[in-house]
């Protein structure tokens, strides 16, 4: 049999952690198989095990069968495996920034990958150029000379895909290949992958949290739960009309509410003519240029835009962490001059909750931090109250950040921000890294906070669905400039600016549409 056939794959990691327990799946040539499941259910480990890339350590046990075109990969030695990797199997890794050698230019890494897979030296330059264009990267000569850290997250992700395709593999294992991408680029990359599947008869095993996306791409969906596949079938069956409890819970979590229509209220936070620039060696990067917006009490404002458009920069400026070049930020007449005073009015929940928590401090210590800094009384009582508000169990207080789930960590960070009773909360990409269930939890929490506390919320995301779920109004940013703003539903339905239109058009259709439409290819911009 050709294609990939995995039978009863079991992986025990040192620990011991039984990460994969009897996984079986098949990826025939020319097919797209989606693998979905909650965070930590074993998707990435399975992929690494198939490509035999798990780090060799004492305690690592891999058993079962991984047949590629009839050959058992688990029985091959390293040298034979090297011939398989790259040319027969390509892998796209989950975290693109970490998957690139930081000390080598993009061009050199591409050339190396091409050479390793037997490309003739004369043809390498041309092939590299073509590959980069295939994944939708422009300005390729400059890009080839660039270092990984000089690329935005989206660019890095596309480079990693190009590298995986360098050897013309007959099977591509793609782990969250589009998480870091904004909708336009995401659509473009997915189109490319589909083309390859169709043209070359490549098999694609696609791992993702994004159920609508998987539904739109895969011919078969596998639902993984605690190391095994618990549900499988065509997307319409598994995701459209889920029957297995795990699938059903997942699909339900992916359905998000819609924010209410915007109300008129007096503005609390007023941002005017904001300009932010970074000095990078000798030249200056103008990240944000003349941005203006207002948020009222109890209102959530969504800030969307392509990667690198300046969203996080605005968040940092509003939180008083970077000083803007010019412009004003005004909160009930106060300005972010004195960091201590400003911290009590405006709080930021950073993009990466794990990073924002000191690994040496327990949850309790993290929550006590604001009390220590500002010498506030009643820590115990206030912490208990806020915990209840964000829905965290007080039993978790003794744990360290690594012992909490992603959703718990995110809520811990929100709780810490709330302890200072700020008027404004800024959330930078609060849900992008979370699976469907966690994402929904966090979004519901944020919505509730706005409603109950009268918080002014600035939510930053390139996840349009998430923004639309809680923000009545959105501001669309492009290259540091506001190109559109207005009620979320309106902007989504009838975007006025071409770039907004492109962003919206690139969104995959919601799962709810699965029952009504056949959806093998994606509507394109």
């Amino acid at each position: 049999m050709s294609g990939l056939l995995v039978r009863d794959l079991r992986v025990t990691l040192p620990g011991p952690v039984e990460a994969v327990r009897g996984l079986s799946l098949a990826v025939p040539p020319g097919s797209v198989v989606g693998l979905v499941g909650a965070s930590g259910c074993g998707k990435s480990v399975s992929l690494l095990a198939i490509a035999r890339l798990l780090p060799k350590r004492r305690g690592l046990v891999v058993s079962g069968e991984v047949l590629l075109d009839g050959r058992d990969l688990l029985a091959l030695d390293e040298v034979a495996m090297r011939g398989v990797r790259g040319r027969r199997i390509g892998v796209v890794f989950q975290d693109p920034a970490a998957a690139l050698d930081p000390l080598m230019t993009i061009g050199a890494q591409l050339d190396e990958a091409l050479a390793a897979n037997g490309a003739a030296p004369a043809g390498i330059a041309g092939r590299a150029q073509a590959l980069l264009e295939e994944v939708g990267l422009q300005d390729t000569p400059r890009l080839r000379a660039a270092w990984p850290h000089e690329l935005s997250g989206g660019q890095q992700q596309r480079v990693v895909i190009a590298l995986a395709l360098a050897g013309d593999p007959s099977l591509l294992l793609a782990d969250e290949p589009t998480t870091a991408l904004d909708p336009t680029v995401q659509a473009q990359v997915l189109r490319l992958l589909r083309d390859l599947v169709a043209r070359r008869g490549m098999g694609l095993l696609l791992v993702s949290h994004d159920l609508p996306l998987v539904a739109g791409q895969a011919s078969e969906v596998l639902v993984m739960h605690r190391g095994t596949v618990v549900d499988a079938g065509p997307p319409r069956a598994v995701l459209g009309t889920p029957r297995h409890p795990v699938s059903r819970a997942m699909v339900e979590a992916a359905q998000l509410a819609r924010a209410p229509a915007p109300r008129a209220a007096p503005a609390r936070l007023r941002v005017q003519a904001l300009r932010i620039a970074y000095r990078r060696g000798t030249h200056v990067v103008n990240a944000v240029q003349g941005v203006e917006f207002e948020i009222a009490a109890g209102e959530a404002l969504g800030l969307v835009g392509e990667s690198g458009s300046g969203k996080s920069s605005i968040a940092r400026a509003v939180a008083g962490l970077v000083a803007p070049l010019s412009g004003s930020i005004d909160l009930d007449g106060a300005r972010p001059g004195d960091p201590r005073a400003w911290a009590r009015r405006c709080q930021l929940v950073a993009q990466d909750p794990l990073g924002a928590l000191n690994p040496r401090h327990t949850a309790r210590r993290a929550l006590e931090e604001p009390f220590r800094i500002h010498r506030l009384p009643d820590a115990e009582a206030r912490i208990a109250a806020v915990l209840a508000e964000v829905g965290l169990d007080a039993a978790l207080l003794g744990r360290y950040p690594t012992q909490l789930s992603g959703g718990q960590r995110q809520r811990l960070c929100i709780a810490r921000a709330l302890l200072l009773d700020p008027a404004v909360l800024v959330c930078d990409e609060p849900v992008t890294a979370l699976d469907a269930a966690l994402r929904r939890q966090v979004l519901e929490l944020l919505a509730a906070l706005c409603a109950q506390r009268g918080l002014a919320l600035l939510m930053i995301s390139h996840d349009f669905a998430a923004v639309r779920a809680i923000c009545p109004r959105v501001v669309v940013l492009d290259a540091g400039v506001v190109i559109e703003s207005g009620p979320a539903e309106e902007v989504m339905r009838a975007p006025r600016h071409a770039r907004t239109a492109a962003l919206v058009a690139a969104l995959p259709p919601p799962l709810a549409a699965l029952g009504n439409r056949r959806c093998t290819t994606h509507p394109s911009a």
Partner: protein
Amino acid sequence: MAGALSATPADRARGLGGWLAAWLGGWGQLGLAITVLAVAVALLGPALSPFDPLAPSGRRLQPPTAEHWLGLDALGRDVLSRLITGTQISIAVGIAATLLAFALGAGIGLLACAIGGPVAGLFLGAMDLLRTLPSILLALVLVAAIGTGTGPVTFALGLAFAPVFARVARAGYLREMGAGYVTAARGLGASRVRLVLVHAAPNLVGPLLTQAAIILPRVITKEAVLSFFGVGAAPEAPTWGRLIAEGTRFVERAPHLVLAPVLALAVVTLGLSLLGDATRRRLDPNRVAG
């Protein structure tokens, strides 16, 4: 997510000793045992030495015998007694100099970083200065000025190694200040000094301690070099360094003189290095983060 620390409650049930043993792992335990033994010898020092370490007790350069296990030195003094007595001084000098280097390099370094501005510049300049001046010169000058003794030697060695800690501290400081949780604390309104002391410094303890474990035996050997050049500890103090330097004069006729302290130093170094490795593995925040 099953982090390394989640196993601790179970281990704690086995008592502190058991917990420590599990925490360190096999090699780490060996390292700890050696270190504890060395410290015990250092503490008990004089009580353990069979002979007066300063007074002659037999024929010069006598090889090891049943009475004198490690033989006698050039003045007929019992080498074992000198080694045992020297343990105390060497380890004391080693620890004191390492502490001084630590305090100067890491302590003042971090504080200077925290205060920033010209203070940091001044501090970095001073460290560059120390880094550039050969420590032997400093020791020579000090000894010429105030005479040999544990004080000047400790001071010279402490100054000499301060830049190493300063470098580790500064690199760590820069890394930590970029960490998400430091930015988060900044967002909570924390002052710069608080950021350094509460957030950055504890995360630097691991690397700095590792550095200290590496430096400590180096300090002891360096003292040998100073002794060789006649600017080591006081001639009455049988530090390991002095024993090595003195023994080197007779390396051919009485190799036991130099072998005994070198082996002792090797064992302690190995112990500290094993302990340091184990501790670092445990304190590394990346590993804690799983």
